[in-house]
């Protein structure tokens, strides 16, 4: 029978790296807390390995912590592997104690040993193992050190049948507390015999500690309230603190015996934080790094984008040059595949480049610092800094970013963050920015224009969060605790995996939803009402195609913005997925008799013909890009908001407010940019 192993630990101790090393999976890893917000399952031989979100205790405050706690308590894993941070052993041991109380066999992994060494920390691993009554394996998971030993011990635990719960050493408290625990256990046994029979001692301790979750669980039984009353009667009121105090005393004793730290050791992280977390320079440096990120993305990917463009626009069409022009297959290959689909694929190098830079920053530990800096600003505005961590995940895709809000304890903060996250520009919007960014102020400033759009997204998200917190979701914000790990030189392996993991989603989407939408758009473009006969026919002039019909149907909505029906098509189909905006343009371009470059074609056709002065076009283009930034990210995002908020109302608000906001801002930009004069 297959055994299960749960990986648990404090946030940012390397659980997911360890999970990946054990199972060969490629779970998202980053050098900041809160990356894992749901459980992930992998296999190590016939052992099922479950990676759980980071927790500090087993009394959950946020949804992700609840996931971890419920799994450990209710799903009954055969073995728990608790990952400890060697640089911060004292705090990590608190969770270790709580896990031991559960009575499930535990193995401890002492990770980040390299960082501990740098900090001149010495740990007596053997003695620690004796005192904890369980194996302790030192590792540097990110470099694969100690993984083999850990694997061997886990396997031997399963093979030698050391998983019996009776073999687990119990942690005992003072006789006074033990007496109360015994009485509470008896009360549970006599009144609620079916409630966690294998964890009765643990449940009794939790009830003594006034744990809300366990109390909620006993209320679901008849007699639950009676049990609570009976336990209350044996308590004096200080037991919750006494238990914590005794745990910390025991931890203190263990630390005294096993942990030595040289005083006055300064690491490179301490030094770098003096400048990167400086209250005056922190945010300007963050902006500089963001600017650099988009410049690098745009510049470094340019040759590859040119190359892929050449492949789809020049080389591949040579293959179909022998096919009859009026054949539907020729049209499908040239227009749908090379034109529409190829336009999206052309931006794959760009997307990968951005994810590479982003992964580098994330793995180095800098993004956690960026969140810390932004928290200072956000806290002054009465917002929760954790929101910014979720926002930064939105640079990749807004959907996991919305899901990551589970780590936010305060419900008002969580809902606010979910609703404003869509303003953070995801990777799917990047191709549109690159396609048109050079037409705002010229090619040299494309990187800066892209940066301005991302920065605008962050500013709008913060302002909206302020609005939601002050007007809609009123109430105090909870304090934000963000653990800053050491800076690390990102490894090629994990940065590569990280980039691939995010970029893969783009390719997957291209092969599924985007391809399907392109085929539908191609059909709509291929059929149309012949102006001479009034009959629906194949291969009519693109101006009279059904696709043009869709564009012309929606165009009046955008008439005040002076956008053409071609611009409207991009927006309408972009609701399905933002990549489709570029695909739609690519498809229409192939219907042109003398096609120019894609960017030039879109620029030439973005405005209603003759309605906008050429000199005002930069403003019109920028307004269009701002609308693309702000309106609904995609259909899947609406679904994610609905799932996470459990409310149709908030899903609708999320789907619509961006349209209004984007429209108003595009109008203002048009006004300032002289579009109407």
């Amino acid at each position, binding site marked *: 029978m297959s055994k299960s192993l749960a990986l648990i630990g404090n946030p940012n101790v390397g659980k997911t790296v360890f999970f990946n090393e054990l199972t060969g999976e490629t779970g998202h890893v980053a050098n900041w807390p809160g990356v894992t917000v749901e459980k992930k399952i992998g296999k190590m031989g016939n052992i099922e390995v479950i990676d759980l979100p980071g927790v500090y205790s087993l009394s959950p405050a946020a949804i992700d912590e609840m996931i971890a706690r419920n799994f450990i308590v209710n799903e009954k894993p055969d073995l728990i592997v608790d990952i400890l941070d060697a640089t911060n052993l004292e705090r990590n041991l608190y969770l270790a104690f709580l896990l031991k109380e559960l009575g499930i066999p535990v193995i401890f992994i002492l990770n980040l040993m390299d960082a501990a060494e740098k900090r001149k920390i010495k740990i007596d691993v053997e003695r620690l193992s004796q005192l904890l009554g369980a194996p302790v394996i030192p590792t540097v998971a990110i470099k694969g050190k100690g993984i083999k030993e850990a694997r061997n011990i886990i396997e031997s635990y399963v093979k030698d049948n050391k998983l019996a719960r009776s073999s687990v050493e119990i942690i005992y408290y003072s006789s006074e507390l033990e007496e109360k625990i015994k009485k509470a256990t008896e009360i549970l046994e006599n009144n609620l015999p079916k409630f966690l029979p294998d964890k009765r001692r643990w449940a009794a301790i939790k009830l003594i500690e006034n744990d809300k979750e366990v109390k909620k669980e006993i209320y679901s039984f008849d007699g639950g309230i009676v049990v609570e009353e009976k336990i209350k009667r044996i308590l004096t009121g200080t037991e919750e603190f006494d238990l914590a105090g005794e745990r910390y005393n025991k931890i203190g004793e263990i630390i005294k015996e096993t942990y030595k730290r040289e005083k006055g050791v300064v690491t490179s992280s301490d030094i770098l934080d003096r400048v990167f977390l400086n209250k005056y*320079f922190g945010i300007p440096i963050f902006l500089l790094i963001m600017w650099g990120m988009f410049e690098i993305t745009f510049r470094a990917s340019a*040759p590859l984008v040119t190359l892929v463009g050449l492949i789809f626009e020049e080389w591949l069409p040579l293959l179909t040059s022998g096919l009859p022009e009026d054949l539907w297959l020729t049209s499908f290959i040239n227009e749908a595949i090379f034109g529409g689909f190829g336009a999206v694929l052309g931006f794959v190098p760009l997307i990968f480049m951005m994810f590479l830079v982003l992964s580098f920053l994330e793995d180095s530990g800098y993004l956690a610092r960026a969140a810390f800096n932004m928290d200072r600003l956000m806290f002054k505005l009465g917002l929760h800094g954790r929101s910014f961590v979720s926002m930064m995940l939105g640079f990749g895709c807004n959907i996991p970013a919305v899901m990551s809000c589970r780590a936010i304890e305060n419900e008002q903060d969580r809902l606010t963050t979910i609703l404003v996250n869509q303003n953070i520009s995801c990777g799917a919007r990047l191709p549109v920015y690159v396609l048109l960014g050079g037409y705002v102020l010229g090619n040299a400033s494309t990187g800066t*224009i892209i940066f301005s759009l991302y920065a605008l997204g962050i500013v709008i998200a913060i302002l909206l969060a302020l609005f939601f917190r002050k007007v809609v979701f009123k109430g105090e914000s909870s304090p934000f605790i963000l653990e800053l790990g050491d800076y690390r030189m990102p490894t090629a392996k994990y940065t590569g995996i990280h980039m691939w993991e995010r970029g893969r989603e783009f390719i997957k989407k291209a092969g599924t939803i985007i391809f399907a939408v392109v085929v539908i758009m191609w059909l709509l473009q291929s059929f149309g009402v012949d102006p001479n006969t009034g009959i629906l026919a194949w291969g009519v002039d693109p101006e009279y195609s059904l696709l043009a019909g869709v564009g012309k149907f929606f165009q009046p909505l955008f008439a005040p913005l002076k956008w053409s029906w071609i611009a409207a098509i991009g927006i309408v189909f972009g609701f399905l997925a933002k990549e489709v905006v570029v695909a739609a343009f690519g498809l229409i371009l192939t219907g042109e008799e003398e096609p120019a470059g894609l960017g030039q074609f879109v620029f030439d056709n973005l405005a209603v013909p003759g309605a906008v002065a050429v000199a005002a076009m930069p403003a019109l283009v920028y307004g269009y890009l701002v609308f693309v930034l702000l309106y609904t990210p995609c259909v899947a995002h609406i679904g994610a908001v609905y799932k996470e908020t459990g409310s149709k109302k908030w899903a609708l608000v999320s789907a619509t407010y961006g349209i209004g906001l984007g429209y108003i801002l595009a109008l203002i930009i048009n006004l300032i940019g002289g579009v109407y004069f």
Partner: protein
Amino acid sequence: MEIIELKRSSFSITALLFGVAFLIVSIVEFIHIPLEEPLIFLFSSPGDAVWESSFLDHLAKALINLLIAVIFLYGVPQIKQGTLSGFGFLIGAGILAIGIGTLFAIEWIANLIDFALQGLVDITVWEDFIFTEGIRTEIFLGIGSIYIMLLWKNRDNYLE
């Protein structure tokens, strides 16, 4: 003790020199900002060519150099006192310089490939490209990396 103070002084002089150097680069970038271009944009009329401006590009580069200069200069008095923050500012500014250098290097290599892909054969463009752009890249990367290396090697002298 005196030797350490002397080394701290040399660190602070280095920081001062770099700060001033970046300040000069920043001023040069500010001077090159084509201020007239927004005016041309405002007074342009229908039918004019599309506005192609390096305004933002120069402004961004000027601000970046200014930021690095300020970080260096801000660190000078703290370096003299031998504080940890002072050392952090020295290293941090160096890393930013390397970052900018890397950016220029990537831009340089990318342009090089792009020129080759486009089959550009004009030798004057290549010369200008290799000499001016290439030198700029090397200066940033070179200064940044040598500087960081020296600082890190001598950190014990500073932090003692």
